[in-house]
């Protein structure tokens, strides 16, 4: 309340002046919002205009080429699916269990510390995770592999899933827990059988949003997975193509190859918008972190 009394240098009079200021500031707020929507509209529009012509049969069934008609992105789609799939499989248990831990046992100094670490990790630059993966795995084994990229992506996903899970598990009413505990059910069983199923839609939302974020990441894959113009189904051996890296590679050429890059960018955008829509439908979204 002290702020209210402290900062009121203006006299109460001159209502017209005050109203004008109010209207200008309200207009500015509208303007800011419009200003943010312009680049969004421009990006989506341009990507559709430039990317859609690339979507032909060859685009979805062919392998990348650096000349001629630009080839396709089949191996990139397969590679992305494999790498992302493994990343999700690693990130879900880690993220969900840590989130549950923070919500159920985290009201102490250790919990606060872990929560802080998760928050800080959501802002960690993805390129740093990429070179960490390189320094740990690629240097040690001497080759690139899809699995290393999966681990890097999982590291980026875990803090997002953790915080989303924690937030939603905290919203589960205490009555439910108490009812279960009163029946003599141990706490761990209460958590697994009562608390988590109640919160599942929110947890799924968090997982989908984290997956959407990871799907578009390029930097962590750059030095761990690399690129490949061939099909590689084996995530444990050799380089693989992924969708973001296919766009990265193809965009350094001109003509139809560049168009393939735009097609890939459009596909990426479609996948990510779809994932965000699904997340919103699965649960009323509560914003991004």
């Amino acid at each position: 309340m002290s702020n209210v009394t402290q900062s009121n240098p203006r006299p109460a009079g001159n209502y017209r002046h005050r109203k004008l200021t109010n209207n200008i500031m309200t207009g500015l707020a509208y303007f800011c919002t419009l200003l943010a929507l312009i680049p969004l509209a421009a990006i989506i529009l341009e990507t559709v205009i430039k990317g859609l012509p690339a979507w032909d049969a060859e685009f979805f069934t062919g392998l990348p080429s650096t000349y001629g008609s630009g080839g396709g992105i089949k191996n990139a789609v397969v590679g992305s699916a494999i790498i992302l799939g493994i990343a999700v499989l690693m990130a879900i248990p880690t993220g969900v269990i840590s989130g549950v831990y923070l919500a159920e046992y985290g009201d102490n100094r250790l919990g606060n510390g872990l929560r802080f670490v998760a928050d800080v990790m959501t802002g960690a630059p993805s390129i740093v995770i990429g070179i960490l993966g390189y320094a740990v795995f690629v240097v040690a084994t001497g080759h690139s592999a899809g699995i290393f990229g999966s681990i890097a992506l999982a590291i980026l996903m875990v803090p997002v899933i953790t915080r989303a899970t924690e937030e939603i598990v905290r919203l589960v009413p205490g009555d439910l827990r108490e009812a279960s505990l009163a029946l003599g059910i141990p706490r761990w069983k209460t958590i697994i059988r009562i608390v988590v199923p109640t919160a599942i839609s929110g947890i799924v939302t968090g997982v989908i949003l984290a997956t959407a974020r990871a799907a578009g990441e390029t930097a962590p894959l750059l030095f761990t997975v690399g690129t490949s113009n061939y099909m590689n189904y084996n995530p444990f051996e050799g380089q693989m193509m992924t969708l973001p890296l296919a766009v990265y590679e193809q965009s350094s050429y001109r003509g139809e190859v560049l168009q393939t890059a735009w097609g890939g960018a459009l596909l990426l955008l479609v996948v990510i918008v779809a994932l965000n829509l699904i997340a919103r439908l699965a649960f009323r979204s509560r914003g991004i972190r």
Partner: protein
Amino acid sequence: MSAISEFFKKFRRGNSGDAVFQLVALVFSLVMPVTILAIFIVLWQESEISRQEFGISFLWDKTWSNSDQVFGALTVIYGTLVTSAVAILLAGPVGVGIAAFLTEIASPRVNSVVGFFVEILAAVPSIVYGIWGFFVFAVFLRDWIVPPIQFLFGWIPVFQGNFTLSTIFTASLVLSVMILPTVAAISRDVLNAVPRDQREAMLALGSTRWEMFSMAVLPYARGGVLGAILLGVGRAMGETIALTYVLGNAQVLFTSFFQQGSSMAQAIASLFGASTSNVLRSSLLEIGLLLFVLTFLINVGARFLVTSMSNQPSRR
């Protein structure tokens, strides 16, 4: 340590299933701190060649020479700081403006629609910003924005020079669009955490909406909004792939916004894969370590401001 002794106490006295579950959950939650430790330790070890070769002066050495194999981090640190600073100067006020619109003006319906669009803006991958920034936005800047700026302000040194598509100017603008949703979303959460009473008291005194916002809401949320802006800075500093398109990969001390430059994250992405020399590779890993320390400190500060704001609404 206390967690372990607590575990044994519980294991002996209470339900052993509970104790095991808690311990397993704790182990999973330790993955994140261990990762952070791993980043510090591994990058410290891997940058050994660079640290021995160049010492502490690596931080302020402006040389970047492949032929002499001498590398200093000053040019990329400078590039990171300038682009992030310009980006936040542009995106900060706009982001807070959006947050003000969402919390004070918009109806719930508009709020949810605009909120969704802002989320999509946040979800657009860096690579898409990159190719859009280079092939569309930079061309637009060259044809429509830069000529009038140079016509009006061309006498100021920072606006001189020939605009190539990838410049500090392009990179800063693309970055500002990319960090806008972060600033907007976190500021919105912070403004939402300001108690309704605070607003109602001010309105009851006969204030206009702007006076209510500027005198009762913003001073209250000051720390949190600053935190949101810092989070935006942190994100801008770590932004990588988009900048490989729009920054130019030139390790120089640029003097104009229309020159090419290089940032820490961008230099790693552009040069690491093709680097054949151990010295360059090690230098880039040291830059990675510096980048992580820098963003880590900024994020810690920002999170401290944001959480202290939204966890204790009755602080003042």
